[in-house]
């Protein structure tokens, strides 16, 4: 005879218990990316289309506001990208080996991209 309740038996079985985490972070990063990407586009237009000199670019990125916003944008954007691409693969790729290859590539790609972008931002901001 089982004294265990049905609830105790299903605990630690079933879902991976990470689904709400993915959902929550996708929304949180999305919300933060709304103002950050508006700032980002305006900055890129000023730098690229406006043809800012390297000195002007470095001067701008050395300021705390631009550097912090750029680092925030990079972090939020690459995390949002990882979460989004992951769902696309999980929805359409059903062969286990191919799926896992894609997922590992997405995770590593976004991590490497974020590290490269963060390093470069800091290097430009601090390099005199």
């Amino acid at each position, binding site marked *: 005879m089982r004294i265990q309740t049905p609830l105790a038996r299903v605990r630690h079985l079933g879902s991976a218990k990470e689904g709400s985490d993915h959902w929550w972070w996708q929304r949180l990063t999305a919300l933060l990316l*709304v103002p950050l990407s508006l700032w980002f586009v305006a900055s890129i237009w000023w730098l690229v289309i406006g043809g800012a000199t390297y000195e002007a670019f470095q001067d701008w990125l050395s300021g705390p506001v631009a550097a912090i916003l750029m680092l925030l944008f990079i972090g939020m954007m690459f995390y949002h990208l990882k979460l989004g691409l992951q769902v696309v693969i999980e929805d359409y790729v059903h062969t286990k080996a191919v799926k896992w290859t894609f997922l590992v590539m997405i995770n590593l790609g976004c991590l490497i991209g974020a590290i490269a972008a963060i390093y470069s931002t800091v290097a*430009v901001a601090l390099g005199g």
Partner: protein
Amino acid sequence: MALRDRPLSPHLQVYRPQLTSVLSIFHRLTGVFLATGAAMLCCWLLTAAAGPEYYEWSQWFLTSWLGYALLAAWSYCLFYHLCNGIRHLFWDVGIGFSLKATYASGVLMVLASFGLTGLSWGLGLYFYFTG
């Protein structure tokens, strides 16, 4: 489990496209395409970290005709994804689920995405002429 060619649901080939489904598909497509923009951001920052002579390469590429075409595509896809993303955030808190509201927000979102892209390029034009 052996992989079989089972029919997938929804059966897209017999489905009449609706505004709702088309906008949803484009949300994904723009998101995936924006990944290439993220790669460009990395290249741009890396060349900047490498020094002024390499930064010039990025500047040259981005202001070439191909660069401008890509910037136009990236900016539109970003504003589309941003506007439809806001639509999704409203749904997430339970607002705008009725069929009428869904279609209205869909039309509004498309108009807003074009409006924001136009506004941003207006700003770009301003920077182009003022330096």
